[in-house]
């Protein structure tokens, strides 16, 4: 399993964290890349909700949320929490369902290393060695 890149966004579209393991195609403009990613996810969520053929959710909860999409070159996994923190992981297309893994990353790496750190400003991008190493460890053990 190859992991390409990982993003964390908050509700306001701020990219709180970005980490890449292997990204052969270089990104020309980082700001644009983040905005495009957020815009894509935002739009996909809205579309997916509107096209839902089963019963629609109430206005407060978008019950229908997309989980991943796959192309011939990569697969993008997505997990959004009710608090607005969303995790995005790009891997090779043959990877299975990584929702549990993303939940694990959210609860052990993000909540433990970032949220509980008093110097983390909610809503601001953060750099945390603890988080990066916890994430790397989780990726290695999951592989």
């Amino acid at each position, binding site marked *: 399993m190859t992991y390409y890149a990982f993003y964390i966004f908050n509700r306001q579209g701020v990219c709180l964290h970005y980490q890449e393991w292997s990204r052969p195609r270089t990104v020309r403009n980082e700001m644009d890349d983040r905005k495009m990613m*957020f815009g894509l996810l*935002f739009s996909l969520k809205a579309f997916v909700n509107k096209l839902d053929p089963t019963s629609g959710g109430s206005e*407060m909860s978008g019950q229908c949320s997309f989980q991943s999409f796959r192309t011939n070159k990569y697969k993008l996994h997505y997990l959004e929490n*009710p608090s607005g923190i969303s995790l995005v992981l790009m891997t090779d297309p043959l990877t299975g369902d990584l929702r549990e893994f993303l939940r694990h990353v959210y609860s052990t790496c*993000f909540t433990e290393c970032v949220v*509980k750190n008093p110097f983390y400003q909610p809503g601001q991008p953060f750099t945390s060695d603890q988080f990066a190493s916890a994430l790397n460890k989780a990726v290695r053990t999951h592989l």
Partner: protein
Amino acid sequence: MPPARIPTGPVTFSPVEKINAELFTLTYGSIVRQLLIDYEDNVESVNVQLEKMGYNIGVRLIDEFLAKSSCSRCNDFRETADVIAKVGLKMFLGVSASVTNWNAEGTECSLVMEDNPMVDFVELPEQYKNLSYCNMLCGVFRGALEMVNMKVESTCVRDMLRGHDAYEFRLRLLEVLQDEYPFKDDE
């Protein structure tokens, strides 16, 4: 009637690390005491500061709560209040509350606690009788709910330290915020 999917107290209480209750109570007490010293006994300012501190805690606590309880999104304010009272308070304070006094539209309710570990050993002297000792909890509710797109106003209505028979917090839903695309289209 709460839906079956909401996990109830003891199940969610166990995975959370616990600390000594006295340490918690004494730490909170020293925070309040220090604020009173810093603001020279201006009780109103201290109330405001406690609420602000609670807000900052709430904004982070929500992630911890969601991570440990794996609760899914609530459908309406009633469910939210139930989850706070039965799961959230149980998980973090070890006591659960009851939800009462709903108004007609379902936008206001009261969380009533018989017991509150924050106020063990506390007696309010006469000069601090207007101090909202548990105001930090009001801030926590406000901060946590704001992160899930609900703007609420939270006040302490009944306080055993002031002679009432229980702790009652009034939660008023001001508005439900909608997700908006934050970037302007022409950028």
